[in-house]
């Protein structure tokens, strides 16, 4: 009995039912508030800011916008400003000051179709270099934006002439450990994962994991790339060891099948980069810990270094809902606090205990 309670427990602290479909929820850095983004049944977008008070959620502010909002990030703003960058169903990228939400601080028609995923780097005092935002869209392109440059992206990753386009479902920044280096990883619906090096403006690595890639994330954005987790349809996720790249075989990986359904989201714990949580299509959450192998590199057949993947252990799992949990965000300020939203029009605040002893 005691050993079962030494494992981390996932406790559903607060649950709130909303009257709109919520696609994404993000913590506002350095506060006990978070933002929920989604769309009303009447077809307009909504941003709601909630604060946790006395074990309940208080609605602080509700902002309605013309187009439904699919995703958002605080990754590219400073801690003082805390501007939210959102991508909407129309393909527009907007950066909002939540105190003055009437007109955006920066706005651009980024893509021709819905922006599926957005990520920011260089803000919040994390990492070096210019703050940038990357968006991935159904039109098959991935674009990187700098809020100081209007209307055109600083980098555009698009299909070649005559190539049939594939939806980009997810993007993530990584490898941003100094002013110059930065990498963008993009996952597509046919199972392609592509890693772009923005310093050399080239494709650094690509692979195909057979099933559409729902979510990619580096374990830390602001270090030399260490690990990358990619989740896909049909319940599989892959953890790539990104420290050693073999010229032909690429990166070593370990894959795990869980959830028995699409894994919608993966998020690493900000305080411990070896712990991550995956959110599944059956409304369940799995908490995992990655164990490094004894040797992270080994000599391959042709005397070239290749990476060795470690192993993944399931720490805890819990089923919260019958509908997929579409988004998950750890609080950067309090270890173990996270907010998740699911397609049953509800948002939940969870507490995961004992993460400091795991």
């Amino acid at each position, binding site marked *: *009995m005691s050993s079962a*309670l030494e494992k981390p*427990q996932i*406790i559903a*602290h607060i649950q709130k039912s909303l009257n709109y479909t919520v696609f994404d929820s993000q913590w506002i850095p*350095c*506060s*006990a508030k978070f933002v929920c983004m989604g769309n009303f049944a009447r077809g307009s977008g909504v941003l709601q800011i909630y604060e*946790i008070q*006395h*074990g309940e959620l208080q609605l602080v502010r509700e902002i309605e916008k013309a187009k439904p909002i699919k995703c958002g990030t605080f990754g590219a703003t400073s*801690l*003082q400003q805390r501007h939210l960058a959102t991508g909407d169903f129309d393909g527009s990228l907007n950066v909002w000051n939540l105190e003055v939400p009437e007109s955006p601080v920066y706005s651009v028609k980024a893509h021709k179709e819905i922006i599926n995923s957005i990520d920011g780097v260089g803000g919040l*005092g994390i990492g070096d*270099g*210019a*703050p*940038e935002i990357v968006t991935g869209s159904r039109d098959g392109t991935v674009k*990187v934006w*700098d809020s*100081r*440059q209007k209307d*055109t*992206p*600083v*980098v*555009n*990753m*698009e*299909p*070649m002439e005559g*190539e*049939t*386009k*594939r939806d980009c479902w997810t993007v993530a920044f990584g490898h941003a450990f100094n*002013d110059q280096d930065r990498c963008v990883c993009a996952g*597509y*619906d*046919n*199972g*392609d994962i*592509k890693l*772009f090096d*923005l310093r050399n*403006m*080239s*494709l650094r690595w*690509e692979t*195909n994991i*057979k*099933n*559409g890639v729902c979510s990619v994330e580096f374990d830390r954005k602001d270090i030399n790339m260490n690990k990358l987790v990619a989740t896909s*349809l*049909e319940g599989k996720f892959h953890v790539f060891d990104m420290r050693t790249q073999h010229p032909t075989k690429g990166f070593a990986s370990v894959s795990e099948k869980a959830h028995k359904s699409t894994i919608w989201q993966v998020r690493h714990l900000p305080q411990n980069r070896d712990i991550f949580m995956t959110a599944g299509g059956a409304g369940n959450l799995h908490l995992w810990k990655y164990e490094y192998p004894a040797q992270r590199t080994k000599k391959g057949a042709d005397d070239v270094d290749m990476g060795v993947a470690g192993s993944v252990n399931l720490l805890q799992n819990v089923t919260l809902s019958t509908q997929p949990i579409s988004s998950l965000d750890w609080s950067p*300020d*309090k270890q*173990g*606090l996270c907010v998740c939203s699911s397609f049953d029009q509800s948002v939940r605040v969870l*507490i995961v*205990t004992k993460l400091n002893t795991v």
Partner: protein
Amino acid sequence: MPLIVKDHTWTQNQNTVYISVPLKGVKPASVHVICTDEYLKVSFPPFLFEVFLFGSINEERSEARIGNGVAVFTLQKRRDESWEQLFTNIDKDKQKQIREQAVLKVQQKEAEKSKAKAARIQQEKKYALETMMKLENKERDRIQKMKDEECARATAELDFWRETQRKTAEEKENQQKTRGTGPQDNQPVNQKTVTLMRNTGDTTSGQRSRKQTAKDLPAPRSAGCIQISFTPRVFPTALRESRVPEEEEWLKKQAEARRAVDTDLAELDDLREDERNPDWLKEKGDKLFMSGNYQAAVNAYNLAIKLNRKIPALFSNRAACHLKLRNLHKAIEDSSQALELLKPAVAANASARLKAHVRRGTAFCELELYVEGLQDYQAALEIDPHNAALRADSDKICEIIQGTT
């Protein structure tokens, strides 16, 4: 007939009668006693002792002790009186009645006893169940309490953290007020909040972060474009788009074709075993085609088709033979038949379809039906867009058509 025992002895006092019956060597276990208020019967086969009592006794308070070769009955009298004799003289009918009553009474008593026993067992089971449930509930409550404590502790920590957040936010505001506004002045505040958030009291790191915010951010990246291509669509593809059902259908059709051998033809009796095998015949036909003996090849294919009408390759190859023999209409028929059999159109039979289209197209052109021929060449190009010869031929046909119209 049991032996009636008559050598019993009895004594009495005011309220009790003692009867002692010798057991005559019979084991005590086989002694059976029936006793009512007016009648006592002791049967120990082969002996029988019965007595119709003089007065009525209290059967419940009487007892019998059986052992040591004798059965001693201590009967409590209902009324304290002295009996003149042990038994009364009653007539036979009355005797029978009393006997029957006694038996009935005994049966009733047994029934009641067993009912009582059943009820008692039931009650004990219920009790056991209740205690078990109580224990389990206690266990469950204990676990729940531990979980609740955990939850309460986490909530308390959360509230405490929120308080500290609020306090630091207030402190930051106060400091901003006291130090006045201005970009330079904000920096020590930034540094201070950063150190508060990160819980580092290290002044050197604080100085470094100040230096960084003072420095300009790097200029926006110079525009770049990276062109990408996607993994080509080979089977298995992204499962949502896979043409698995069609591929399966094609494979099944192939399997059926293999099995559809029509063997009940009279002419076949005089053929060798080899010559009944469509595959062998097809190979023979191919060899004859290679060596230039087109008519013989056609014969071989004919026989093979007679055996198995479902193999598209036979029709396609026969079409090629007919083409060489300039039997153009037959060539068109055969390649059409082949194309019919090559449905559904999947990657697996692409090359076969290509050949059939080309042959039919050629036949049409030879017959000067250029439009139909062009259609077939277009279809072939769709299957294999990179074939230069095909492209050249279809261009030639286009020119001819445009020349004649």
